[in-house]
């Protein structure tokens, strides 16, 4: 009832506001407004009050959340604690314990007694459990590191996280002392301070075994949430671990989340190469320079990102009905790609486009296959996998090469990168893989900012809700352009550019506008 708006009988729960808007099913679910945490929200001038048992069964001056005291104008004066009876009246008739009408946004629900009792019990249980990973002194996080990730990228992420934690803990020692010295509600903010620890969880071996490794680590020493994380392949096992143990995971640096739809606990920068694939199919549908029918060869590695990109592209291309993938060339997950292998394909020169879901080093090893003949007219590369400089090492005429680029335009990255360079230098962190550093910095900063809003109310659901709300306002640099989330949204960056080279210069410029593919 609370989360989905479905009655125990299986029917839709239905509520009606005083304004006669009728909301049924998911739209009328309490969680839609009061959120899964039960902590409510503040949206466009409407304060949706917390409805956790903890908040309701106390007089209303309990500062259950940052906006608890921003009540509707005619409810400015405090009201007594709810009882089971007055709570039933609030839900059915919209009357608070002081006899006043609730804000017009709160629907009235005519629920049967038994359903109402279950709902009230549920409210009492909301966000009432303990918070794994949080003790009186410490809040513990972890970051997942795939052992296959190269030193450069791995260190880039870990250096940033470690420096952030050092900084943070140096600043919070005093608050902890102050909290113990000054009791009472005023010190609630002080009491919220915890020493931060971020455990580094390295996962090794086949991805199928990661789930067990994560579980063992978690059972030994639980964490409140995962921050960042980095993988050279897939991420599915981490995603599933988080859903299962209800551990939030914020902004891992992965090329392929490797999941069909969003879950609840993992929040990503983007859909990764699957987004690139969709954007490319979308673009090809509208590119008049591409010969029709469009016949594509795509080359990819037998690994997480390769398979995710190729599958998404195949599906998307079929949906846009502009062409088809004529041939998939699957390279083994590891080892050198066979030299000049493109030339040996039976279709020879028939391809109108080649899509290479390959890394920069793979592209360099491809040699110079059929690039100098007339076909394929277009060669598409992934900026996530190959970087922006790999095109030149391909040996193909650069006027044929296009880059699928889910980042800001080269040279238009904004002041963010400068800011992070300064931050790193001030903390003696050596400069490294810039995208990785920027992403790690974004992850850890937004979690810290969101955690500040929780005060000493350590609810994972509430943390996710705060991050959803704040992502859009964040000025912290990440390698992506504009990031934005909303309730239930789990991918913050949603589009791509297609770039081409300006002949004779190394410059990359966009072909057309920022593409946001519409993937039903």
């Amino acid at each position, binding site marked *: 009832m609370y989360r989905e708006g479905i009655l125990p009988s299986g029917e839709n729960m239905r509520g009606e506001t005083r*304004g006669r*808007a009728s909301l049924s099913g998911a739209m009328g679910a309490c969680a839609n407004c009061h959120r899964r945490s039960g902590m409510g929200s503040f949206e*466009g001038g409407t304060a949706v009050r917390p409805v956790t048992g903890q908040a309701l069964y106390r007089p209303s001056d309990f500062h259950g959340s940052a906006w608890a005291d921003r009540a509707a104008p005619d409810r400015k004066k405090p009201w007594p604690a709810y009882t089971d009876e007055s709570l039933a009246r609030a839900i059915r008739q919209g009357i608070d314990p002081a006899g006043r009408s609730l804000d017009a*946004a709160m629907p009235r629900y005519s629920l049967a007694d038994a359903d109402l009792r279950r709902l009230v019990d549920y409210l009492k249980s909301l966000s009432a459990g303990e918070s794994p990973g949080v003790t009186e002194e410490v809040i513990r996080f972890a970051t997942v590191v795939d052992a296959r990730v190269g030193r450069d990228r791995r260190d880039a992420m870990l250096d940033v996280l470690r420096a952030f934690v050092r900084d943070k803990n140096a600043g919070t020692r005093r608050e902890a002392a102050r909290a113990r010295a000054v009791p009472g509600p005023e010190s609630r903010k002080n009491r919220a301070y915890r020493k931060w620890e971020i455990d580094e969880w390295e996962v090794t071996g086949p991805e199928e075994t990661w789930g067990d490794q994560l579980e063992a680590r978690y059972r030994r020493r639980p964490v409140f949430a995962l921050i960042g994380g980095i993988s050279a392949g897939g991420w599915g096992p981490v995603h599933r671990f988080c859903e299962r143990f209800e551990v939030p995971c914020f902004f891992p640096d992965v090329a392929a989340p490797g999941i069909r739809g969003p879950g609840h606990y993992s929040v990503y920068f983007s859909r990764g190469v699957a987004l690139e694939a969709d954007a490319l199919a979308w673009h090809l549908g509208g590119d008049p320079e591409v010969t029709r029918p469009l016949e594509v060869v795509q080359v990819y590695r037998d690994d997480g990102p390769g398979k995710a990109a190729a599958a998404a592209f195949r599906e998307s291309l079929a949906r846009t009905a502009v062409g088809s993938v004529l041939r998939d060339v699957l390279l083994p997950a590891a080892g050198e790609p066979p030299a000049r292998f493109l030339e040996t394909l039976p279709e020879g020169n028939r391809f109108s486009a080649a899509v290479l879901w390959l890394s920069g080093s793979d592209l360099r090893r491809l040699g110079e296959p059929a690039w100098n003949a007339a076909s394929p007219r277009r060669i598409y590369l992934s900026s996530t996998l190959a970087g922006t400089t790999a095109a030149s090492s391909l040996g193909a005429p650069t006027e044929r090469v296009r880059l699928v680029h889910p980042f800001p335009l080269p040279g238009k990255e904004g002041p963010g990168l400068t800011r992070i360079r300064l931050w790193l230098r001030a903390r003696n962190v050596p400069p490294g893989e810039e995208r990785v550093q920027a992403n790690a910095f974004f992850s850890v900063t937004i979690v810290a900012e969101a955690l500040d809003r929780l005060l000493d109310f350590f609810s994972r659901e509430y943390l996710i809700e705060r991050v959803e709300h704040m992502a859009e306002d964040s000025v912290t640099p990440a390698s992506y352009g504009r990031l*934005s989330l*909303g309730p239930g949204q789990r991918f913050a960056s949603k589009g791509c550019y297609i770039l081409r080279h300006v002949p004779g210069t190394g410059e990359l410029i966009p072909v057309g506008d920022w593409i946001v593919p519409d993937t039903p």
Partner: protein
Amino acid sequence: MAGFLLLPLIHPDARSSAADAGGGQRVRIAEVSVNVPDVALKGTDGRTVSLRAALDDGRPVMLQFVFTTCPTICPLLTGIAARTRQDLGKERERIRAISITIDPEHDTPSVLRKYAAIFDADPDWMFLTGSLPDVVAVQRAFGAYRGNKMNHAPYTFLRRSPRDPWVRVDGIVHAEVLEREVRKILGTP
């Protein structure tokens, strides 16, 4: 009910009045002047729609800004618009309704199509999306841009014809109040 001051920052020339929406809830109604930018948006079928042409199709128009993952305000705004259109019966064909998403990168045509279906939107009710800069420009023109989408204001805009001023209804109103304003515009009691 006491009168209401509008935020002069938003629309210095706004003439305002307040009405009791019942249950002590106040609705602020104001005339606002809007210079609609000439942008091309997209409908739920993915086709391009000129916003100016959509607004000036010869009929009165009712416009809201919403987004589909919006927890509280948009389901109510949209729900009240839906209820109003239901209550208008056949007459709703005389007024075009337009809902523009303020979260266009998430609310693609297919996402808006599903949202419209939840509210049983009739054929004269369009849901539009577009590029982020265009959608921001439209919100600015209506004095409805608030940066973070979670801070958006619960406005419904009404206009009889391109020669008439826009009327801004501010608040999560009663369907009856909205219907009354719509009937004023339609000139039917």
